[in-house]
């Protein structure tokens, strides 16, 4: 099946030291300044330095939320370990492959026989001009092939390297020109769509940064965490910012400490967050259960990576759904929210912080490596009104009942310092006053309360993304939402209409809302990136799906492509 025609995809390759990731960023910035939208992801091996690295870039006039089915341009500074990318980088049959012949050869399996090939003698040029850098040559070449105006590119280079002095700048610009000239004889099989002006205020931002900003906007003022790939950038972005707004971030000794620190800070009245990945989330589940029982608001961001166990730390997967939804011992209802796109990382985290406070509950935010480390151009997200506000108790004498049974299930919470509000927060089954009890009656009353406060709340439209029409629906979640959205466009172009249903709120389940979303749907394609079909089993557990439900699923690191979903939809029609 043919690909979406209005975008161009570029893969830049080179071993770590060669700076392809920087090249990718400069290219992204240039093309965005030139009036396109773009998305940049990186694919790296386990080496800290010097391993294989790829910058994967997609350019379009429209906002870009995922990669397409294939690449139009493969540009390699060297071919060192390029075979390790295997099927992660698939080229179009008419792709252009440019590389340095002195740096090895393109892996045969990577390059279709019909692809056109060209040389870019980076090593040789750098030997002639020791002050040039190979990645500047590659940048010049790629920019020329994408028809990025020279002035735009040079301004980007200047912004980034201008401070290094005139001589360095001159070398960079010369190198860029040499790269551009080296590919003068080539053109991409499909030329980039026309650029557009007047995008309004736009940002270049990663999902991890967006989570950080969303947390701040949602009122988070304390964070404690333990470093882990691919979540660390959230913390590294937040650390100086929190200090500047009068909050703080503590690097804890481990995840057991970090989650308990945020529970303590939140108990003290400060909206709090931690960020981690699967192994760290595993260590936190006991404490998240405590936050459920003691009704302490916290936000726990899990940036999912390949699992199980240490798995593949640098690659994306959607396989922490089970632990996020079901991973607490006992009956421990809590919220699970999954962002779908880079801007949604901001919105969802902000919403999470808001809901944690409003419902006095832990919230797990399920992002993934793809969203977290992808950098994209987005329209500046509007300021929305989700700022965490806790229902506070102002006790006026009499015994304060911290866990009072109220109509909403939310009980006014006294913050230390408040006279007369003293109580003991407890993870033991407790009475309304917080006193430990083993009574079946008290146990059931508090379990009811904690369930009801989450289930009775009106989450509004944000519970899911619902788009399109038809009697076929694609049911997906998280970062595959953008992929599915594009697939629906592809299918529509081929005359097949379908709906997109992507729940953002994974727990608690919303049976009535899902029933409405599925009304009239006779066929469902479930799309997810897990080996065990976790999302499909989750859907079965909580929702009624039509008998004709198929699952398109695969573990990481190979993400599902829009064309695959589109093919599944077309096959549905054919069947």
């Amino acid at each position, binding site marked *: 099946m043919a690909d979406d025609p209005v975008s161009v995809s570029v893969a830049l390759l080179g071993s770590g030291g060669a700076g392809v990731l920087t090249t990718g960023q400069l290219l992204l910035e240039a093309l965005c300044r030139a009036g396109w939208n773009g998305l940049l992801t990186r694919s790296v091996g386990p080496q800290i330095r010097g391993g294989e690295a790829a910058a994967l870039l997609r350019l379009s006039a429209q906002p870009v939320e995922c990669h397409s089915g294939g690449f139009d341009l493969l540009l390699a500074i060297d071919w060192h370990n390029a075979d390790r990318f295997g099927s992660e980088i698939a080229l179009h049959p008419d792709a252009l492959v440019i590389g340095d012949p002195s740096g090895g050869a393109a892996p045969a399996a990577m390059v279709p026989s019909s692809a056109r090939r060209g040389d870019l003698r980076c090593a040789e040029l750098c030997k002639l001009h020791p002050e040039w850098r190979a990645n500047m040559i590659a940048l010049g070449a790629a920019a020329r092939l994408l028809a990025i105006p020279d002035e735009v590119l040079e301004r980007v280079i200047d912004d980034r390297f201008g401070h290094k002095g005139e001589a360095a700048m001159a070398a960079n610009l010369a190198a860029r020109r040499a790269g551009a000239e080296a590919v003068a004889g080539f053109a991409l099989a499909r030329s980039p769509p026309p650029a557009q002006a007047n995008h309004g205020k736009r940002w270049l931002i990663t999902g991890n940064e967006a989570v950080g900003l969303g947390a701040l906007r949602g009122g988070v003022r304390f964070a404690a965490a333990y470093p882990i790939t691919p979540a660390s950038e959230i913390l590294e972005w937040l650390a100086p910012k929190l200090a*500047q707004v009068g909050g*703080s971030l*503590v690097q804890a000794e481990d995840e*057991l400490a970090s989650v308990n620190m945020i*529970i303590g*800070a939140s108990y003290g009245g*400060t909206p709090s967050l931690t960020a981690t990945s699967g192994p760290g989330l595993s260590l936190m589940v006991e404490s998240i259960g405590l936050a459920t029982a003691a009704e302490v608001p916290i936000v726990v961001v899990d940036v999912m990576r390949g699992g199980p166990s240490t798995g593949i730390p640098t690659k994306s997967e959607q396989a922490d759904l089970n632990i996020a939804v079901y991973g607490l011992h006992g009956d421990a209802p809590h919220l699970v929210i999954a962002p779908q796109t880079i801007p949604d990382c901001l919105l969802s985290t902000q919403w999470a912080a808001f809901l944690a406070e409003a419902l006095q509950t832990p919230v797990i935010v399920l992002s993934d490596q793809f969203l977290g480390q992808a950098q994209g151009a987005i329209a500046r997200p509007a300021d929305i009104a989700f700022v965490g506000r806790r229902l506070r108790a102002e006790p006026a004498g009499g015994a304060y009942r911290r866990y009072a049974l109220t109509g909403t299930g939310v009980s006014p919470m006294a913050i*230390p310092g*408040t006279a007369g509000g003293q109580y003991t927060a407890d993870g033991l089954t407790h009475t309304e006053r917080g006193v430990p009890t083993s009574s079946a009656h008290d146990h059931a009353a508090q379990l009811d309360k904690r369930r009801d406060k989450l289930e009775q709340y009106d989450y509004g439209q944000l519970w899911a993304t619902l788009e399109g029409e038809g009697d076929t629906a694609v049911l997906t979640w998280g970062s595959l939402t953008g992929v599915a959205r594009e697939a629906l466009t592809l299918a529509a172009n081929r005359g097949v209409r379908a709906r997109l249903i992507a729940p953002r709120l994974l727990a608690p389940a919303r049976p009535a809302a899902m029933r409405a979303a599925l009304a009239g749907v006779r066929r469902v394609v479930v799309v997810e990136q897990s080996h065990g079909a976790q999302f499909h089993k989750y859907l079965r557990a909580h929702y009624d799906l039509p008998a004709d439900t198929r699952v398109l699923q695969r573990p990481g690191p190979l993400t599902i492509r829009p064309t695959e979903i589109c093919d599944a939809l077309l096959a549905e029609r054919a069947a």
Partner: protein
Amino acid sequence: MNATITPACKPGDYKSDVKPIWCPGCGDYHVLLAFTRALAELGRPAQEIVLVSGIGCSSRIPAYMSCYGFHGIHGRSLAVAAGVKIARPDLTVVVASGDGDGYSIGGNHFIHACRRNVDITYIVMDNRIYGMTKGQPSPTTEPDFDTALAPGGTGLRPFNPLVIALASGANYVARAFAGNPQQAGALIADAIRHPGFSFVEVLSPCVTYRPDQKAWKERVHPPPVEATDDPARAARRLMTDDGFNIGVLYRGNRAPYGPRAAAVVHDLAQFESEFEF
């Protein structure tokens, strides 16, 4: 559970109306008394004090006091307390734990709390046994003490928590005895007043699983010398003492964990410029 109170100076004002589940005669009753005495001596209103604990007989104590309490999970009290104090430096934060909660499952938080030196006070009620779970050995249990889980004894050298605290950076180290609640109260008050991370080991007998500990009252004695501020000297002393020295043993002068910075950015939009292009 805790009554509204006005700033008070009587120990009784710091007690709640919840009846302890402790066995009759348990040392923890005296620690409760010592706590209320300490708080009365300090005179801070109960609502400005947070008492955090883990799980164990000893860790039940917050519910029995009239300040804010946090009865968390097993072994994590110090982490909770650090969060409270760093985010709310205006509060007085005290932590109560047991020898199992604090030294076994909670050991990592213990050494890191000492290092981090947040201005909190850590009281461990040591009875050299797991009381709550009915009598298993703890890190401070004597190697030959017979239990069902370790018949004939564990054969392991007991932990010396005071030495470990010192080695890890605690800023104040003392030992108290539940059997002398007045002195224990004074030590707790002193520890709370001392800046940074203060550690007080309280010998608190478990009458049910360690009836032999009734003999402790004969064994305790004042330390032979004054508290030092030299960790190396304190370490040598503590490594050779008999475990029944009661009093302040080390009084350090490291600056506590830095306070939160004042806000210099008041509009989050200021952070947005880094994303613009």
